[in-house]
């Protein structure tokens, strides 16, 4: 095989992602079928959407019958951090040709962290090396979520409280965000705007209203936030 070395190296580097994606994917699949959705939605979502946090939130969208426009806007803001990942990879993704659209598609929090932490190896064909690395990662996520969904639809156990895995995921991400940002103000804005919407807004519009209120607060206190 022509790109055997690239394949080997990519597999080796992807092992830490394997652990995380299979376990988290499994939790996602399990949660999805616990609301009686078909198991095959798990692989479909992991194939086409492939965004951990959004896929979990999507289950909530299905449950509350969220409007399409609301889903689009909320998805955009949930994923907005990923719009900035590409900035530091524009140069590295040059000359990746036909594979470039997939490399961009498969940029997740974890693969981005991995890609920016590895050094390019002169002996490897860069574009295929990146491709295998990102492909393996998506494969783990797809595998984990499919297994979780199949397991959950065949083995019945008490899943009450399982939805907390999503809350726990966000708590962890929140702590990691704080460690890198070291500014409490945005968390405060998020908290105020979401508590406001929780009290005054019906649950199918809550996320959207929270985002709008938060944006207003963010720009109102722009100076104060940047001086923190």
């Amino acid at each position: 095989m022509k790109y055997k070395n690239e394949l080997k190296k990519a597999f080796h580097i992807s092992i830490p992602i394997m652990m995380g994606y299979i376990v988290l994917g499994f939790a996602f699949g399990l949660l999805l079928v616990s609301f009686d959705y078909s198991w095959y939605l798990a692989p479909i979502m992991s194939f086409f959407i492939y965004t951990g946090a959004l896929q979990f939130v999507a289950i909530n969208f299905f449950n509350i019958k969220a409007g399409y426009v609301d889903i689009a806007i909320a998805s955009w803001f949930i994923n907005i951090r990923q719009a900035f990942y590409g900035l530091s990879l524009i140069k590295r993704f040059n000359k990746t040709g036909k594979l470039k659209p997939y490399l961009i598609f498969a940029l997740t929090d974890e693969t981005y962290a991995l890609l920016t932490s590895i050094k390019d190896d002169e002996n490897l064909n860069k574009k295929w090396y990146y491709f295998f690395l990102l492909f393996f990662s998506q494969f783990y996520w797809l595998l984990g979520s499919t297994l979780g969904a199949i397991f959950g639809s065949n083995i019945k156990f008490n899943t009450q409280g399982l939805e907390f895995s999503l809350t726990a995921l966000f708590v962890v991400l929140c702590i990691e965000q704080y460690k890198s940002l070291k500014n409490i103000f945005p968390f405060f804005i998020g908290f105020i705007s979401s508590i406001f919407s929780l009290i005054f807004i019906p649950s199918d519009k809550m996320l959207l209203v929270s985002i709008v209120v938060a944006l207003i607060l963010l720009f109102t206190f722009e100076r104060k936030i940047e001086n923190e």
Partner: protein
Amino acid sequence: MNNSEIFIAIAIMSIISYFTRALPFIFFRNKEELPHYFLFIGKYFPSIIITILIVFTLKDVDFSIVPYGLKEIVGVFVTAILHLLFKNYLISIFLGTVFYMSLVQLI
């Protein structure tokens, strides 16, 4: 949602996700060109949305009746403490969820 609505929702989320990831490759070739407000949102909004999402996931909890959402609040704190102690996101999410599930199933 019924199945066809779910498929449309999945299509929307797929397109938005891809567009979000492709944005810098389409519009911004170097960082200096970025408008200020864009960088500002990019720096602070991820922290805001994560906080909002924590509250959003707890939207169905009724805080006005016993036990006043205490199980959820304790669950959040346990997960946070686990994460600060072990710094491993799989341990924090797994044990945090198991802890919460035992709270709601056993008490």
